[in-house]
């Protein structure tokens, strides 16, 4: 196996005006965030405009950077900015890595980010939740956090070492925390935000330990040196590092066993779900593994673990997604599942790195579009999220319906739309593994495709088709539903994302465009071995399974009446799926409760036990009879006494040593 292909693609210093000033990419949204959060009420009138402008400008800069680098024979560049944490052997630099991998992420983050910023102008215009200072204050704060997110995410993908990655990694965690808890009056929002941050921190510790291990073994944490010298690491160390990085990826990307925070994260406003919890931040785990590809390529054990996590997660996400009635939660579990596909792909090693990134990009389009569509539905339906209270909405919001439907078709892999190319390629690569792995991973991926078609068809049927179940219902506040289409500021971004959902897959695949572009960063795409299934059969199988899933959904919810009340007498499988396959229950039983109990116990021990013993000792030392009280009665006397004691001790000691 070819191992260090990066030796063939040496890292060169950034050149040219555009590259040397690439820090502007990060500075723009960061500055936007600072201004928006510090300016106060004066900025309410123009805050959203500034918020969009910084991200659009960053997108423009990213496009220019991308275009200028296209003809570059040396597309892997490093830009040194300043020395961040220099202590002796440890030299942590702050710098940027400009290569095809980071540039496609820059375009995704700022491009989809721009659309979602624009959409948010409409979505957040009448924010009811925050009463302080009116809706505009809340919207300004929202754009401030969103800008902060974009800046942190750009640090994550552009940083040229593992520590700068970590800076962005926890930075996006902070932005995610702030945005999940954005509606701070809701108790559930704060709880979901805390949960997300803490579960992410568990993953972050894995990432941190991997960094410590790299420093201990190689004396550096910068990509260039680490990857150039990866073959010096023993296989045990490589396995440890790759597993620890995987733990980090699991936290950020909502992969089993750290998946439980992502559905709760839907407490945040819907644009947040679209940008952070679908298109960009949650895919950071995929980026991490793809970025660390020289390490993974050297560790078969590490790769296997990644594929297992991906395969398990993609199925878990599908199964739970089938059982929810909350439109955003179904989409959230769909995200969990689709990222499972990406993780599976990058776990396949050189055969899959680029495929994982391709699915990440197409997913960025269609899942962001689906979330924005869901937001548009909620916008028109008094923020209702229960699909059992929807029905027949296609007539009332036609643009939302069409764009949503295109995203849906892309997701389930309808032939020649985006998902068809990117997901199919992953399934093919999984089957291409040969032996039992081909059957297991390929089978899981194909089965997932069928389940995906089921839950997504169910969602579309319950939302847009069938009888209008909302007609005779009222909201929690007692209002009637008046479904309506969203304003243009919201629908235009949805349309643009729908275009991407339709065409991106073909565009990337045609002439191996994306795979070829990514080669300098990810290495040559390795052709699969003689797979366990013939190549031509796989698309047929996938499309067939998807059609079957869609048909099943139609039999369940299209043909039959959907009850507004959730059926209670259901099979154990559905009950388990509704309970998130007991993910939360397991966390509570194994982690939360023991920690709570331990903390409570220790507090008691500390005030009774440790302190009691110490007080007793103090009493004993203080005096035989009422000494302690005298300590308390007058300080000066006591001080005199203790100084006297000290003096006596001093003199005694001097005498004891015979001086002078």
């Amino acid at each position: 196996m070819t191992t260090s292909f990066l030796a063939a693609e040496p890292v060169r210093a950034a050149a040219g005006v555009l590259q040397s000033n690439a820090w502007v990419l990060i500075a723009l949204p960061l500055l936007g965030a600072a201004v928006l959060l510090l300016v106060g009420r004066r900025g309410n009138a123009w805050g959203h405009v500034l918020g969009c402008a910084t991200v659009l400008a960053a997108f423009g800069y990213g496009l220019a950077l991308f275009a200028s680098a296209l003809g570059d024979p040396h597309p892997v560049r490093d830009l040194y900015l300043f020395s961040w944490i220099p202590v002796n052997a440890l030299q942590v630099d702050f710098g940027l890595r400009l290569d095809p991998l980071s540039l496609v992420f820059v375009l995704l983050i700022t491009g989809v980010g721009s659309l979602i910023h624009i959409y948010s102008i409409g979505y957040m215009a009448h924010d009811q939740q925050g009463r302080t200072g009116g809706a505009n204050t809340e919207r300004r704060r929202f754009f401030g956090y969103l800008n902060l997110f974009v800046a942190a995410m750009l640090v994550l993908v552009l940083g040229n070492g593992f520590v700068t990655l970590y800076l962005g990694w926890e930075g996006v965690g902070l932005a995610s925390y702030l945005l999940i808890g954005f509606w701070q009056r809701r108790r559930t929002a704060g709880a979901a935000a805390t949960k997300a941050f803490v579960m992410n921190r568990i993953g972050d510790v894995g990432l941190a330990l991997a960094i410590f291990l790299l420093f201990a073994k190689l004396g550096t944490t910068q990509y260039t040196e680490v990857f150039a010298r990866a073959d010096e690491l023993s296989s045990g160390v490589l396995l440890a590092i790759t597993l620890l990085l995987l733990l980090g990826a699991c936290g950020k990307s909502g992969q089993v066993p750290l998946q439980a925070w992502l559905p709760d994260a839907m407490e945040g406003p819907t644009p947040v779900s679209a940008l952070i919890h679908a298109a960009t931040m949650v895919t950071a785990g995929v980026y991490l593994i793809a970025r660390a590809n020289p390490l993974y390529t050297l560790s078969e054990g590490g790769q296997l673990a990644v594929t297992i996590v991906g395969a398990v997660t993609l199925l878990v996400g599908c199964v739970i997604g089938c059982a929810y009635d909350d439109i955003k939660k179904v989409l959230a579990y769909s995200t969990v599942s689709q990222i499972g596909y990406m993780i599976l792909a990058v776990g396949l090693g050189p055969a899959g790195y680029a495929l994982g990134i391709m699915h990440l990009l197409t997913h960025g389009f269609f899942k962001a579009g689906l979330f924005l569509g869901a937001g548009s539905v909620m916008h028109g339906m008094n923020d209702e999220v229960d699909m059992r209270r929807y029905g027949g909405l296609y007539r009332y919001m036609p643009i939302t319906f069409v764009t949503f439907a295109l995203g849906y078709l892309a997701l389930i892999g309808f032939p020649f739309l985006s998902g068809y190319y990117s997901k199919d390629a992953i399934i093919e690569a999984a089957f291409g593994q040969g032996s039992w792995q081909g059957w297991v991973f390929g089978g899981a991926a194909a089965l997932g495709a069928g389940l995906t078609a089921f839950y997504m068809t169910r969602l579309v049927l319950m939302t847009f088709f069938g009888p209008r179940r909302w007609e005779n219902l009222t909201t929690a506040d007692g209002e009637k539903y008046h479904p309506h289409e969203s304003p243009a500021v919201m629908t235009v971004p949805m349309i643009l994302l729908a275009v991407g959902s339709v065409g991106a897959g073909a565009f990337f695949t045609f002439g191996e465009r994306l795979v070829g572009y990514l080669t300098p960063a990810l290495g040559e795409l390795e052709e699969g071995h003689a797979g366990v299934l013939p190549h031509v059969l796989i698309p047929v199988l996938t499309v067939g399974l998807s059609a079957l899933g869609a048909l099943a959904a139609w039999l369940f919810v299209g043909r039959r009446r959907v009850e507004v009340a959730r059926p209670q007498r259901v099979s154990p499988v559905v009950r388990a799926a509704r309970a998130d396959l007991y993910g939360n229950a397991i966390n509570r039983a194994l982690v939360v409760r023991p920690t709570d109990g331990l903390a409570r116990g220790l507090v008691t021990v500390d005030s009774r036990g440790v302190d009691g013993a110490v007080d007793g000792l103090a009493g004993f030392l203080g005096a035989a009879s009422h000494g302690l009280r005298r300590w308390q009665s007058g300080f000066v006397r006591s001080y005199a006494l203790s100084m006297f004691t000290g003096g006596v001790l001093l003199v005694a000691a001097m005498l004891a040593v015979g001086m002078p």
Partner: protein
Amino acid sequence: MTLLLALILVPLVGAVVVGLLRGTDRAAKLTALAFSLAELVIAAAAWGGYDPAGPRMQLTSSVEWIPAFGIELSFGVDGIALVMIAVIALLMPLVLGFSWGERLPRGRTHGGFFSLLLVEQALTVAVFAATDVFVFYVLFEIMLIPMYFLIGGYGGPRRRYAAVKFFLYSFLGGLIMLASALGAYAYAVEVTGQGTFDWATLTRVLGQAPTSVQVWIFLGFFLAFAIKAPLVPFHTWLPDATEQAPIGVVVIVVGVLDKVGTFGFLRYSLPLTPEASQLLAPLVLVLAVIGVLYGSLQAYGQTDLKRFLAYVSIAHFGFMALGIFAFSTQAMVGAASYMVNHSIATGMLVLVVGLIIARGGSTRIADYGGMSGVTPLLGGMLLVAGLSTLSLPGTNSFVSEFLVLIGSFPTRPVYTILATVGMILAAVYVLWLYQRVMQGPVSGDALVGAAKGPGATADPNTLSRPGGRHAVIGDLGPRELGVLAPLVVLVIGLGIYPEPMLDVITPSVEATMSEVGVTDPVAPQGGN
């Protein structure tokens, strides 16, 4: 007169002037603030005049005190002492600004309060600057006196108990340290025939001492420092002191006074008894890791805001002790910078908590809820202080915690891995506090009770109109913002660009490492 002596004398003179001032309370406050600002300017000048590549001790001065015992009033700073002195100089004006409107117990004046604070400042500067072991001991004990009065005279209802406990603990620790210092003296006499308490000489002489001698001397110093920088199980005075002391004093206790303990490890324990330090390192490391985990779980379980602060610090002191006794340059620089960054981050956290308590009048966490909706700026400040406390990258504390852990990992992987659990727990206790106090609907007796003032309605929503007629609880005022703003700047500034501080600390740590006689496990690379 060196700048260092000026740094000791200026607050002392200030304290006397403020104490003698027979004018209004306001005049006394302004005078104290002026002296503390002058001190800050001198500290900046001292920093500017310090040469990181220069001698081990700089800005030195020496006067004979008790020639019979070879005791000299000698002072000097290395990089670690310098940054600590700078931090005190920085914190004091903020503490004075914070305490400007503090409601003091009956019969106490701000003049007396501020005067004592300035005395404390002078003594702590002197303690960090001492280069004579006996002088260090004397100052170590004397600095307890103003602190005793600050806690016992100006604190909460159980202030007497807390003050006595604080005093007893530190004083007894100090006495045992004295025994060790005398032992060191005696050994010097035996070996060289010449008695001295001079730090540099004792370091040279004791470095050659048999391990058994070193162990006894080490233990005496260790106990004193382990009480001061509270390591579990010597920590129980701190929660009581923080609970009872006024907020401004808490800042000085956890921000400055406690650091004398970690500073003592670095300046005295390690160089004086290098072999014993290495031999007994596992003992300290066990206590350090226990401190991290125990302190974090305690912080998580607390129901009182001020006790929460104490346990947060205990967890952080665990990290510092880990960094000091892991014996690598990175970890030790991490620990030394942790001392500074903890002062800034926890100092800010203490001040913000003080502002919360000032508004609600209660220290019970359960008395608060949803405050962000009423006081968004205060909420933001708690978040910034909290994020630094949990060492988010980009904040100052991250740099030190990262250095401690990455530096400890090559030599002590197991302890390091255990300590990383503290990273998760930090997120838990910080965000859990933030969630209960700031997020959710406005609730809690303190807030709703405050809203029910004369002319107010019981509806908590009236709280949410800033400047509205019924708003009883206001957001941050200009003075409060002025106190917190410099800390926010430092939290972010030292998080993004820590190099100036690391450059001052690193050579002193390298010197300490060579005094101990250990080399880094990870050697610097040749040019790449």
